[in-house]
């Protein structure tokens, strides 16, 4: 379903910058989605809903860019309490076209 949609659009893209992963553009979209999902005004007890909201809004913003990419968005939320949290990722892909960006966000709550 969604793959056919992307294939139809790929012929429209001539410029190389539209078919490579632009980290800055994606980072801005992600930050906007985070602020919208868990920024001021969001009810505190909906903590377990925040991760879902962040990934859904982020994915929605990214697909609106209309670029021929598949996207995977992950989100980790942890309460600040002094305990350690460590993450790592490793990828096997086409480094000329594929890319990633990571946003670390600290909130005072």
């Amino acid at each position, binding site marked *: 379903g969604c793959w056919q949609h992307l294939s139809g659009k790929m012929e429209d893209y001539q410029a190389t910058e539209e078919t490579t992963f632009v980290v800055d553009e994606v980072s801005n979209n992600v930050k906007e989605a985070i602020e919208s999902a868990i920024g001021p005004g969001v009810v505190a007890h909906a*903590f377990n809903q925040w991760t879902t909201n962040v990934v859904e809004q982020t994915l929605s913003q990214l697909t609106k860019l209309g670029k021929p990419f*598949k996207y995977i968005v992950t989100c980790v939320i942890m309460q600040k309490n002094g305990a350690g949290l460590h993450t*790592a990722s490793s990828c096997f892909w086409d480094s000329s076209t594929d890319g990633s960006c990571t946003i670390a966000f600290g909130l005072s709550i």
Partner: protein
Amino acid sequence: MRSLLRAWVALPFSLPVGFNAEEAHNIVKDCVDGVLGGEDYNHNNINQWTASIVEQSLTHLVKLGKAYKYIVTCAVVQKSAYGFHTASSCFWDTTADGTCTVRWENRTMNCVVNVFAIAIVL
């Protein structure tokens, strides 16, 4: 561009028949057991452990020789009274691409490993 690739590229991969999540789950679980098994949370070693988990998992998955791109992520958190939440969402081809999540814990830490597999279409 894509029709050119079909004519000129031949990769020694078997054709994917859908992502085998159970196979990936077993591979990753063995990697996590090997790295974290018997260990307590240790601030000095934790970076090395998470890096080992993702690298070893990726190596084993690639060795399956299937036509997939892989993304492996790992989060390790020290056990505490506080919450730890993760979520992921994907925009892809649901018939060919797939994911599996391995949750592992011991007395002092929780570990969540996600594998995302994107089918390479030639």
